[in-house]
């Protein structure tokens, strides 16, 4: 399996696949739950339940990423992954701050995009970093 022109080790392949699947579940769940929230008027307890459901796959994903980082022998790769995740986190914070000011007065209806932004930015940053260092 190749990623950005780079041959991945079995450990990296396995980790990438598992983390990718978990991220996919997180995003799909977030989209579905947001759609339900937008269409139905739910009680506060149901909203809490949905919030718990939305974060359920996030926590195992964080553990999976931590386990991958602990086991990654290639320290440069580990460095790149951490840097990329920081980019993702940074942009999520920026986007969240901007939207918290804009959303109440705009008709954008952005909803919860934090996880999607994080996944897209972190994986793009990792690809760019690997591509720059071909």
């Amino acid at each position: 399996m190749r990623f950005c022109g780079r041959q991945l080790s079995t450990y990296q392949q396995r980790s990438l696949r598992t983390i990718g699947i978990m991220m996919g579940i997180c995003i799909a769940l977030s989209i579905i739950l947001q759609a339900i929230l937008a269409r139905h008027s739910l009680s506060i307890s149901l909203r809490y339940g949905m919030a718990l459901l939305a974060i359920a796959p996030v926590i195992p994903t964080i553990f999976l990423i931590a386990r991958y980082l602990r086991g990654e022998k290639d320290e440069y790769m580990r460095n790149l992954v951490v840097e990329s995740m920081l980019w993702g986190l940074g942009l999520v914070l920026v986007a969240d701050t901007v939207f918290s000011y804009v959303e109440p007065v705009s008709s954008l209806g952005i909803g919860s995009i934090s996880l999607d932004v994080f996944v897209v930015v972190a994986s793009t940053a990792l690809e760019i970093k690997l591509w720059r260092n071909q």
Partner: protein
Amino acid sequence: MKNRLRVLRAERQWSQADLAQKLDVSRQSINAIETGRFDPSLPLAFRLARLFETTIESIFSDEIESDS
């Protein structure tokens, strides 16, 4: 930090991929070290020194030290 990795590798006619394989790291890691974008950890520096049968100091040098 400066290093002589590219020279040592060229002396042995190893490609970056060859060296990466011997050290069990990615080729990008070797490239990043050679170009000075990444300073390896002490364990990796020891592995490099052992592989090239030399000392860490003969591969890596502190820029401040070499400038003076």
